[in-house]
């Protein structure tokens, strides 16, 4: 019998009570530890499994560490299938279609609706502790992890879009970072004319779900526009802010202010390229690019990449990526346990993965308690101005409010078309009007398909 209000079964409750009693005895001198061990995350599932697995995209060695910890804590081996970010949906879907067992996987918010529609995602409601996690979700996380009133995942990380400028080059220009888009263009023209930079702006405009589209989404939102309203009607027609933003963006390529490499680079590659010190501005893109551009091991100009907010009222966008429990799991209770190690609390009650990600990779958390903690302030400090980033964070809106189609399964194929049409526009093959008209036409096509 399950208590739907708290998501705990009677058995869970008894287990937790026994754990709490034991913890109270053993942890008498460490109340925090005792409390942590009392949670559902410290209770072993009743069933037995020999191994578990997850299918994720790569990020440093975070998965080696957390798998090791899981095995140490629970004695169960964890296998990982790890691919590149853009290849992850393909890998996951192929494994799912092939009938393989997948306990836990992850999703960008752009693919999540599709994964749900294809039946890959198991709702978490009713699982021990799920409701408590949901209470600690940030605003971004709620919008992606809770779908149709059900908790569908736990947060992997959160990020907001920021601009970067290069301190050395800025010093040479004797200017202050831009406060409007007109000023941005004027500055770029000047530094190009003065021979300080051949290509002052490096955009993140490589093909992807979040790279090139994200740049357009952010700049459109910052200017007061959206792509779809709450009822799903597109906002790409003549005179729309999205269309005018694209026109403005394409002009930066036509004027040769934008680095042509922009069309190939994605997150990390663009941050590394920016570290070469050849561009005055980079952006707007994920705040944690500073983790690469200011890393001495990856950048010859480490420490020179600075964070900068967006023009006008400074509004920007943000996202949360999620881990989810796959319907193809081998054992729901154990899969939930593994899911918590990746996106929730470990046995000791800590948000171990989220804290490590903040310290090692400058990633934001999908949990409010982590975002409010010292971990963020101290963890991010080596790479950038934490106060400035958190100030930008306050002005961030979840991308789903800007691009409502993210909640639809057809968003993924529509993004494919978006990448094509926008790159054609940026390379001067078509103008912004034609690109937007084609994208409007594509909405019906992808919906039909």
């Amino acid at each position: 019998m399950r208590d739907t209000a708290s998501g705990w079964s009677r058995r869970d409750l008894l287990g937790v009570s026994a754990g709490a009693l034991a913890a109270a005895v053993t942890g008498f001198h460490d109340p925090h530890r005792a409390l942590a061990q009392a949670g559902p995350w410290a209770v072993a599932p009743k069933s037995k499994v020999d191994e578990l697995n997850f299918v994720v995209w790569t990020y440093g060695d975070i998965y080696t560490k957390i798998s090791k910890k899981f095995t140490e804590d629970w004695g169960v081996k964890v296998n990982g299938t790890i691919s590149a970010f853009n290849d992850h949906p393909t890998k996951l879907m192929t494994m799912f279609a092939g009938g393989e067992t997948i306990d836990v996987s992850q999703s960008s918010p752009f693919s999540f609706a599709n994964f749900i529609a294809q039946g890959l995602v198991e709702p978490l409601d009713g699982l021990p502790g799920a409701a408590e996690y949901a209470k600690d979700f940030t605003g971004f996380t709620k919008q992606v992890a809770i779908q149709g009133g059900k908790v569908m995942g736990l947060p992997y990380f959160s990020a907001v879009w920021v601009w970067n400028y290069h301190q050395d080059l800025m010093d040479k220009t004797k200017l202050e970072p831009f406060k409007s888009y007109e000023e941005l263009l004027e500055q770029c023209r000047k530094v190009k004319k003065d021979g300080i930079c051949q290509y002052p702006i490096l955009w993140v405009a490589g093909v992807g779900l979040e790279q090139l589209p994200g740049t357009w989404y952010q700049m459109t939102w910052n200017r007061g526009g959206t792509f779809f309203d709450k009822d799903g009607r597109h906002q790409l027609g003549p005179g729309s802010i999205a269309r005018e933003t694209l026109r403005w963006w394409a002009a930066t390529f036509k004027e040769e202010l934008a680095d042509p490499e922009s069309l190939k680079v994605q997150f990390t590659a663009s941050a590394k390229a920016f570290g070469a010190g050849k561009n005055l501005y980079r952006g707007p893109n994920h705040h944690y690019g500073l983790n690469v551009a200011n890393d001495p091991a990856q950048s010859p100009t480490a420490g020179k990449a600075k964070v900068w907010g967006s023009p006008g009222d400074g509004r920007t966008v943000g996202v949360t990526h999620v881990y989810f429990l796959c319907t193809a799991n081998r054992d729901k209770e154990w899969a939930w346990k593994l899911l918590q190690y990746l996106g929730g609390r470990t046995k000791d009650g800590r948000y171990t993965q989220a804290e490590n990600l903040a310290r090692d990779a400058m990633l934001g958390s999908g949990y409010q308690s982590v975002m409010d903690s010292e971990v963020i302030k101290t963890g991010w400090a080596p790479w950038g101005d934490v106060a400035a980033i958190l100030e930008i964070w306050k002005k961030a809106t979840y991308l789903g409010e800007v691009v409502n189609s993210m909640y639809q399964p057809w968003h993924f194929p529509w993004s494919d078309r978006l990448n094509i049409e926008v790159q054609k526009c940026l390379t001067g093959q078509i103008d912004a009007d034609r690109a937007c008209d084609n994208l409007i036409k594509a909405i019906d096509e992808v919906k039909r398909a």
Partner: protein
Amino acid sequence: MAIRSEPAAAAPPVRAGRRELAPGRLALVMNLPTLLTMALVLAYPIGYAAWLSFHRVGPAQLRRGEFPWAGFDNYVRLFDDPLFLLSLRNTFVFVAIVVVVEIVLAVAIGLLINQQRVWTSRITRVLILLPYAIPPIANGLIWSFLYSFQFGFLNRILFTFGLIEEPVNWAGHPETALYAVTVPYIWRTLPFAVLLVHAALQGIGTELHEAAAVDGATAWQRFRHITLPLLLPIIVVILVLRTSFAFTVFEEIRAITQGGPGDATWVAAWYSYKKAFEPPNDIGLGAASAWVLALIVGALAIVYVKTIYRRIH
């Protein structure tokens, strides 16, 4: 008057039921294992793909084993999609460039390394094989670095020799991207064609060239009237094989341009991959596009054989 012949003394005794098979049957038996293997690893997947192309298939359907019938719907959608037609057009351009350049270079390099008197030809023979040992995706990545706009070696070399004044965005410009992708592909696959040509050249007797030289034929005339006609059968083989392989180019596209900029380097195999293996994983449509590609390659192979190979024989 009938003459009764005595059995040959040297012939081994034939045991009942162990008679030698007729040549036709022997050939069938000898080929059977290969045929079965090919049927299993090639014909079955190809047939299965054909079957999928007439159904509505996604990952969920594959997992459940339920496949709603779609008739020709996937094919109709395919030919309604301008992106597929563009991908086909790009594929034809790519194949035409690759096949022509490879044949010309293979013959030229084959002739060069066939020179027994030139000791460096032995070194060249080894070196020419190296690209063939490089995995396609690694080859693509190597060339994407070479093509890099601001930091690439290609632009640096051209700039150093004064051949360009500004860096060229080889793989990032819509007018050059498709041609830029052909170069790494040719670089990787050329050794195969060179090997075939070289093997064929080894089979051409020197007496023909010697006789022609005695009759006063120039080097060009000997090539034109002796070497080239004798190479034609192998050139047709290269034509068929290279055409069919080039039609399925994928790795270099994946590593260097990912179909971009825009749709400038979308080719048919890339289209099939994107449709079938990326959400929403329209596997039926992907299978249909793969089948259209296979039919085109098959038709071209038949045309090659009928128009060139038979004429030679």
